[in-house]
């Protein structure tokens, strides 16, 4: 998803990029809670019948399920915020808060959109300066990356 914003006071242009996700944190906990009930219930049923060894396997499996959901949700919680001011272009990345920041001088930064020569292979969109580059929108689908490339081109050219 690509969301655009404009700060009228400072003149800053802001673009927020996030991957597609069809499950929220609440949904995840609801699912995990339900599974804990079901698996805990089954484990407890057999534990009372004397087969207590089912319980640890149920617990381990629930933990694996929770870990996998967390991994997937962490992936979809990633954000990239591109802030364009008169002088700079800033790319911030992180999950809940910015974890890395890359800053370029707006006058010199180059936008490179490299389409793959092979059909069906994703393109790459990079901001580049002095041989160093940062890829943006890696998690976007092709149409969104294409729209982002056009948007960035317009914004970077505008003075």
């Amino acid at each position: 998803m690509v969301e655009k914003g404009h700060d009228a006071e400072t003149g800053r242009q802001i673009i927020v990029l996030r991957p597609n996700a069809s499950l929220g944190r609440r949904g995840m906990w609801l699912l995990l809670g339900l599974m804990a009930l079901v698996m805990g219930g089954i484990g407890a049923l057999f534990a009372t019948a004397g087969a207590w060894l089912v319980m640890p396997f149920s617990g381990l499996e629930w933990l694996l399920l929770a870990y996998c959901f967390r991994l997937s949700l962490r992936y979809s919680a990633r954000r990239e915020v591109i802030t364009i001011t008169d002088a700079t272009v800033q790319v911030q990345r992180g999950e809940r808060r910015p974890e890395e920041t890359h800053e370029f001088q707006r006058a010199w930064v180059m936008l490179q959109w490299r389409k793959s020569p092979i059909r069906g292979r994703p393109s790459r969109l990079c901001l580049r300066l002095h041989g160093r580059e940062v890829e943006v929108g890696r998690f976007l689908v092709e149409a969104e990356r294409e729209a982002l490339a056009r948007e960035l081109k317009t914004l970077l050219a505008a003075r």
Partner: protein
Amino acid sequence: MTAVTHDDHHDHHDHGPAKGFMRWVTTTNHKDIGTLYLVTSLIMFFVGGAMALVIRLELFEPGMQFVDPAFFNQMTTLHALIMVFGAVMPAFVGLANWMIPMMIGAPDMALPRMNNWSFWILPFAFVMLASTLFMEGGAAAAGWTLYPPLVLQGGNSLPFTIFTVHLLGMSSIMGAINVIVTVFNMRAPGMTLMKMPLFVWTWVITAFLLIAVMPVFAGAVTMLLTDKFFGTSFFNAAGGGDPVLYQHLFWFFGHPEVYIMILPSFGVVSQIIPTFSRKPLFGYSSMVYATASIGLLSFVVWAHHQYTVGMPLAGELYFTYATMLIAVPTGVKVFNWVSTMWKGAMTFETPMLFAIAFVVLFTMGGFTGLMMSISPADLQYHDTYFIVAHFHYVLVPGAVFALFAATYYWLPKWTGHMYDEGLGKLHFWLSTISVNVLFFPQHFVGLAGMPRRIPDYAVQFAEFNAMSSVGAFVFGFSQLIFAYVIYKCVVGGEKATDEVWEGAKAHGLEWHLPSPPPYHTWTDAPAPELIADKH
């Protein structure tokens, strides 16, 4: 400029397939892993099938001819374990890997690296299982149920068999978790749960069944291990344990396991019948609810496998009625498939033929199941060939035919080539006729009292057994046609269009991708208008 670094953290999707053998070892691509699963399961189908032929060869006529009874029992045990855990389940996981991302508009499975692990556990597990045949005392010879105390009296193979079962369980659990996370978090924008294709729905319910029951099985076989080697008495009556507890544990897993193998078959058939009837699926939402109901009911009927060990009358009544209740949602599904075909512009290509055979023959298997649900009648059927006939009707023309149908249906999409329709139809007719010659007479010998799991039998069962064995060999060798059709289609043939089947685009997102699909699926999200009501 501050803190600018070269960004060299590339996700797996930045790469194309690696070259050579290592492509398959290291792959995290859902289609590659799907292919690995499907090829492995086909190999296992032939291995398990060869074991079935050893069984049928020995049973061709009364008396002992080819194998000794101990080896015969090892064959029945390994045939079952390999067919269930090696052929049918991995084949459906393979289908899930190939099709679910394509059907929900996702670029890949949610956890690609775990996907790779969950596949690569399998070959090692099977090698370990097969190696038990060469151990002192031979492989496990206690049936796929591994009941104590019999299984505890075996040779050195027990810990290896149990370790294999643990590995196969781990693989299944990882596959199931991957399906759940993918479906819940990776659906394309606009793909709500009630817009998902039936195949995806059936797999989600299957995945929940798997993760709910696998710990029970893992616990049960671990307790067998501790009883054998660590002096515990979970199932040892002499030490205060209860062998029937193992039966409860096993069938609490084992009964839903049957639905784990059948629900995705329902999904496959629900994709194929609308395409070849050129109509939308009749009663989509009722199909979803029926599948969920079958899933739920499968948890509460396990003791119908245990009527003969003795249970209170109230228990017998409960399990009888609860088991019969499953016929209701199953009937809804059969009714909806038939209603989908009703007044449809039907054509009978190979996938449709297998789908129709599935509906008819699975229903027959279902009806004999209904007979066995009645506890007083079950005392007559228990541990006879009637049971063998029943569950083979459910699992061979049921699950295996659905897998054939799925392969013929999606093979042109996977390979980009049309398969040989003539050979496909030959495979269908030979399989369908021979599978009935193979399993139908088993109803009669079972009702007449022939017990299962015996290498020799009374002469009055000779004719039907000979017939059954002829059917088995024809069915077994017919599958070589299937393998050849796949090989021929992979190496070449008429180019398949994107849609492959006339009007298929109306029934699934996968038909909007090129044939074969690009290595990276859905690098562009499917348009919202494509997603609406693809049933």
